């Protein structure tokens, strides 16, 4: 039985080198060689500085921008150094209150729009960093964004349609709109 002690310790050391050092280093080497942009966080450069990651949502609450999902990260929304969901249960009153206040905020920013609000626009994402909203959630906001910017609704609607991604290979996942990309395109309209 004592004979098993040496293999236990020595093989752990060897496997640590193999799977804990060699393997991550090889993957890093391949990743940085083949997919440098993705491996480093899919960062976007604009005006010579890093303006965001295409994969990580940013907070928007100005009526002239499209708003994204609610984010439960602390101390501020879309804190990409501390991802978190709300973890509110379906019957928790705090959930209904949070949803209600978001509904109120959306209605206040767009008086007269009484359409039912797409669910993803009033609920918090799992990651707190969701970069997307549904096409329905984007179309819901077209009227507000157009009015705030003094632009034609159809122009904005076309922009949303251009930025709506289909399911991957037309099958996987869900259709969606990248909020950051859409807002950057809005600012570029002028």
């Amino acid at each position, binding site marked *: *039985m004592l004979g098993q002690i*040496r*293999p236990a*310790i020595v*093989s752990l050391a*060897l*496997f640590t080198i193999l*799977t*804990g*050092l060699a*393997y*991550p280093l090889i*993957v890093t080497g*391949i*990743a940085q060689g083949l997919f440098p942009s*993705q*491996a*480093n966080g899919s*960062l976007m450069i604009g005006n010579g500085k890093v*303006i*965001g*990651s295409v994969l990580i949502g*940013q*907070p928007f*609450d100005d009526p002239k921008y499209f708003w994204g999902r609610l984010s439960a990260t602390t*101390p*501020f*929304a*879309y804190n*990409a*150094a*501390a*991802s*978190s*969901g*709300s*973890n*509110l*249960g*379906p*019957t928790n*009153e705090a*959930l*209904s209150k949070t949803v209600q206040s978001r*509904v109120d905020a959306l209605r206040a920013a767009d008086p007269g729009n009484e359409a*039912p609000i*797409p*669910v*993803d626009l*009033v*609920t918090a*994402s*799992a990651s707190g960093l*969701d970069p*997307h909203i549904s096409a*329905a959630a984007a179309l819901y906001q077209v009227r507000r964004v157009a009015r705030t910017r003094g632009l034609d609704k159809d122009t904005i609607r076309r922009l949303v349609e251009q930025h709506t991604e289909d399911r991957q*290979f037309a099958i*996987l*996942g*869900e259709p969606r709109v990248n909020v950051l990309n859409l807002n950057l395109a809005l600012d570029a309209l002028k």
Partner: protein
Amino acid sequence: MTTNGYIQLGLYMVVLIALTKPLGAYMARVYEGRPFGLDRVLGPLERLIYRVSGVRADEEMGWQTYAWAMMLFNLAGFVAVYALQRLQGMLPLNPQGFGAVSSDSSFNTAVSFATNTNWQGYAGETTMSYLTQMLGLTVQNFLSAAAGMAVLVALIRGLARRSAQTIGNFWVDLTRSTIYILLPLSLVLAVALVSQGVVQTFGPYAKVSVVQPTTYDEPVTDADGKPALDEKGQPKTKRSVLMEQMLAVGPAASQIAIKQLGTNGGGFFNVNSAHPFENPTPLSNFLELLAILLIPAALCYTFGVMVKDTRQGWAVLAAMTIMFVGLLVVCVVAEQSGNPLLAKIGVDQRASELQAGGNMEGKDVRFGIVNSALWATATTAASNGSVNAMHDSFTPIGGLVPMWMMQLGEVVYGGVGSGLYGMLIFAIVAVFVAGLMVGRTPEYLGKKIEAYEMKMASLVILIPPAVVLVGTAVAVVTAGGKATIFNPGAHGFSEALYAFSSAGNNNGSAFAGLGANTPFYNVALGLAMLFARYWLAIPTLAIAGSLARKKIVPAGAGTLPTHTPLFVALLVGVVILVGALTFIPALALGPIVEYLLMVSST
């Protein structure tokens, strides 16, 4: 459910089942020592490992030695992970300058990773240095999985051999699982994930400026760095403007690949595979999902090959698949029908071409309902425990499915190795039940099942429920257990029940509102994980040893064939019955009450 929903679920099942035979056949070759190609390339590495660590590869072990070797190896792994966390502040590869992890959290995480549970009591990106993630967590992701596969192979040998004293060599099974199965698959998966946007870098966290500066309430800290309180005892805040975002990155892809393939589940980031850097696209999601069940399903075929009757493997796989598909549909439908309490506020939850609809709280848009529910079911069917949505925010019935999946004992595919050895124990119980009905000595694959095997099988089946129910009971009557329950009412009870179901079956997922990084939960769940892993693995090896010694009895007229639809139905019945009888009272107090409250309030 939408048409596309059926297509996505169908595609997943088809690809999973299609890969079962090729991968299963390959693994059988690896364990039986027949040539399989990769051995020519990596053979020298395998022999080097044996030479340096003093292993005689041709020397086989009895079951006690085999179990002893596994325990020693896991103990060494536990000590290494614990030490790394406590010392990370003094070690390199720590660009964010994280200090030592607390002793109770380190204990919990070390147990969790050594037992293949990978319960995440900690938040990765705010606690763990790159070095700890790699040398501690990634390494155990491989080795705890390989140890589970080794125990399974030992049990299969016990079934396949006749009048033998030994069940294989633990070091050989461990090494072959790691370098021929887990490493190559992980390497391929990791690179595929990076192509989709999973990060893999040793650089520090990236700082980006935000497009629209927003204001928020920043907590004020006093001179000691503790939160300052105002006159009312509430934390003081000040208005601040957010100008930039700090993006947590790191060597994530390499760890995520093995996290999924080894049914580990401990994420690189706090929100696990919901994080866009851990699971950025629907394709990465599909691959990670596939990786959860790939090896556990394929091992069924490996089992069939090794006992020289592949129909036996298909029968077990069929039983698993029937239970999986049934519960999957329940989960998807529950989540797709949404939350009636939100419908009252004027929220549109209908699925359409423009939105996934349904219960989107705690889900990301790119996954929607179908992929979130599929993940929740798969991750708890296997003892994976990674998440791409927050189970705590699931509807009551949607959350019941993953909870019950774990409570069934992690045998619906289950963990790599551990799932199938758990299911084979259920098969032994099933033939025993059938034997009682007709008054014959039960046999499985020609081996007589006698009192000793049944005692050990009973241990395997009874220990996890005991750990789960006693642990939950203690949590809901003690101050330490109740203090960090997050959601009120029945859902709060579900949080505690889920936590012990997860730890007591080595799953690792959570109703994550529960504040589990406290001394009470770190220690209680740590102990639950230890019981659930070793008190199952050791009796399983005892059965292996006992069966190996027996002769093979030729099948007679009274033998129950174990490859027929009848046996599949019997096996499903035993698993469901044990799970239902044990847990329905507890489930009634949690998700079922919550469901009734939810529908009655509308």
